[in-house]
């Protein structure tokens, strides 16, 4: 087990495409770090550089105190789980898991012990004699993880390991992965484009965009204190609403004015923070879960009330999503399913202004 450090790591493909544009990242021992971001942002490239499957064009990668830039994958002592599992089709499950140990000349008894131990952790003991062809997607996934576990490497690397599974199995395997990590405690770097996976698995989430790191932090911190507009919009589902608004001073307080009919008061606690930006055109950001039906017992001063007529109502079972438009901007609100709402009919809404964000549209930074 080991720490992993990335220092100014750059990947430039031939043709001058910069897939990774100089990222710094320090991963602690035992830590579970998730790289998340939209398609093409360079997550896989970063992971593959750590694995040694891609050459590093610039900067340094350090695994367990050794700079590994010029170390081939077989000597880096890492294990990787691929999206399509990459099991050896001609080997049994047992041989698939044992292969890495056999190559490293472990003795037979030790190999058997480790494979059986991993099989027990993953509950695949009865599959050891099968070939990968005879396994379901979820079982192959487990075998792929088993192959990583038996090696007891310094670092586990996962590249979208769950994206070939159906939704139900994905949730199940997600829990499984978390359980395995809690058991073996190996430093893990996990790549996904699914922010729910990122939030649920990670000790720390690394949000990437266009080959750069946007923000690194524990899931709750990214959710409550995004630093950039990209992170604010990327984390959370359905994603945050953004509405152009003007920050104005009214009496001793501040308000955000979207239209003349939609003016919301800024909580007093934020006055000092936002004061330098009075008079500017900004983006007002609020998550759907903070835009709900009014609660009769909720009397916090930061709750603002207004009415809007939803154009689309989506009952999801555990919640109902309402979509309405303000000044041409779609806004999504999240209601309790018990509240009766109908498209086109005015509904009373409450905004929790404690949860608001203001974004500078010029820098895309959250103020």
């Amino acid at each position: 087990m080991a720490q992993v450090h990335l220092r100014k790591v750059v990947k430039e493909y031939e043709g001058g495409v910069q897939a990774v544009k100089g990222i710094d990242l320090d991963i602690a021992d035992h830590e579970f770090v998730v790289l998340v971001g939209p398609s093409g942002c360079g997550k896989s490239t970063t992971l593959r550089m750590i694995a040694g499957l891609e050459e590093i064009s610039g900067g340094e990668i350090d695994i367990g105190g050794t700079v590994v830039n010029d170390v081939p994958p077989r000597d880096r002592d890492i294990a990787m789980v691929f999206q399509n599992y990459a099991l050896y089709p001609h080997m049994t499950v047992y041989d698939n898991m044992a292969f890495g140990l056999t190559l490293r000349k472990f003795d037979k008894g030790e190999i058997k012990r480790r494979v059986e131990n991993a099989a027990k952790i993953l509950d695949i003991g009865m599959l050891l004699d099968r070939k990968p062809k005879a396994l379901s997607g979820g079982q192959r996934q487990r075998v792929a993880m088993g192959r990583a576990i038996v090696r007891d490497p310094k670092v586990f690397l996962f590249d979208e390991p769950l994206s070939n599974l159906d939704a139900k199995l994905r949730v199940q395997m997600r829990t499984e992965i978390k359980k395995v990590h809690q058991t073996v405690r190996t430093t893990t770097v996990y790549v996904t484009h699914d922010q729910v996976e990122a939030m649920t698995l990670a000790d720390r989430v690394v949000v990437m965009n266009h080959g750069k790191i946007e923000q690194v932090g524990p899931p709750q911190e990214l959710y409550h204190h995004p630093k950039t507009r990209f992170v604010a919009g990327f984390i959370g589902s359905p994603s945050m609403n953004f509405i152009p608004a003007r920050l104005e001073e009214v009496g001793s307080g501040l308000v955000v004015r979207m239209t003349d009919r939609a003016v919301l008061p800024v909580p007093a606690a934020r006055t000092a923070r936002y004061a330098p930006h009075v008079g500017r055109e900004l983006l007002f950001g609020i998550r759907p879960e903070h835009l709900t039906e009014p609660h009769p017992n909720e009397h916090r001063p930061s709750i603002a009330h207004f009415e809007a007529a939803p154009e689309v109502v989506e009952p999801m079972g555990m919640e109902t999503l309402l979509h309405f438009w303000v000044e041409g901007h779609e806004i999504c609100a999240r209601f309790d399913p018990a509240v009766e709402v109908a498209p086109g009919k005015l509904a009373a809404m409450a905004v929790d202004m404690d949860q608001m964000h203001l974004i500078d549209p010029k820098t895309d930074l959250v103020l």
Partner: protein
Amino acid sequence: MAADGTLVAGAPAAAGSGRANTMQRFARRRSTIAFLMALPLIALIGGLVVYPAGYAMWLSTLNRRMTANIGLGNFEILLDSDTFWMVIMQSCIFAVGAVIAKALIGFWLAHMLHHIPAKGQRKWRGMLLIPWVIPPALSTLGWWWMFDPSYSSINWLLNIFAVPAVPWLGEPWWARFSVILVNVWYGSPFFMIMYLAALKSVPDQLYEAAAIDGATGWQGLRYVTLPMMQNIISITVLFSLIVTFANYDIVRVLTNGGPRDLTQVFASYAFQVGILSGNLPRGAAVSLFMFPVLAVFAYFILRGINRRNKEQM
């Protein structure tokens, strides 16, 4: 309970069997159509393969003048003749030696090509295929010139490096080597192209997984590439064994069986006996000897493929 069960189960079962009936009729109709459409081909194969094979078998039981049926007499005479045993031996040396060399060289070439970037690959692939597309009778003639005792260009080259001239076609083992060499030159591109296709079908991620598991390049080849290609290797080897065993033109053009019939293979010897010496029934008997030999090869190779398919698929 049971009555309910049958009732409930009965309805969909009836509907299902109705559908199955029409489906069956449909399948039957489709297979009838398919059979009719394949009929010309079946007739063609019957005419070109079954009939000559049957005719050859019947022919092989006749005497030289084809006036009387002497049963297995031709086969007995052949098995008593030293020349024929030599032909069997030479055919085996020729076919097995050539196929092994072709497979190794083909694999090596395929591996080299596979690692050339895509742009250059087409060019090289095209050039390496040339020996295979030239009619072998023609290219063999070219080789014959290069081996010619007095004008041999190969010997001329060897002389430059102070290596003594080699009697390419005059001395038995050199002649055997030469026919194999030409066959390898002609046949390797086929192996190359088959193996290249097989190499391309091995997912890159398997190599990446192997590299991470700790495999060196050689170990990747040994534990990933070869097992993944095993079926293609078996099939090409079998196919090539059959074709090489029945090879005729190279021996005929290059050595004409000489020196002293030492390079004769089944096909050229059958021609020699049947056409040139005019003993058609015995020539037929010679060529029929290829059957059992090939059948043994085919049995073992196909059994291996079958077993692997059952395990993996």
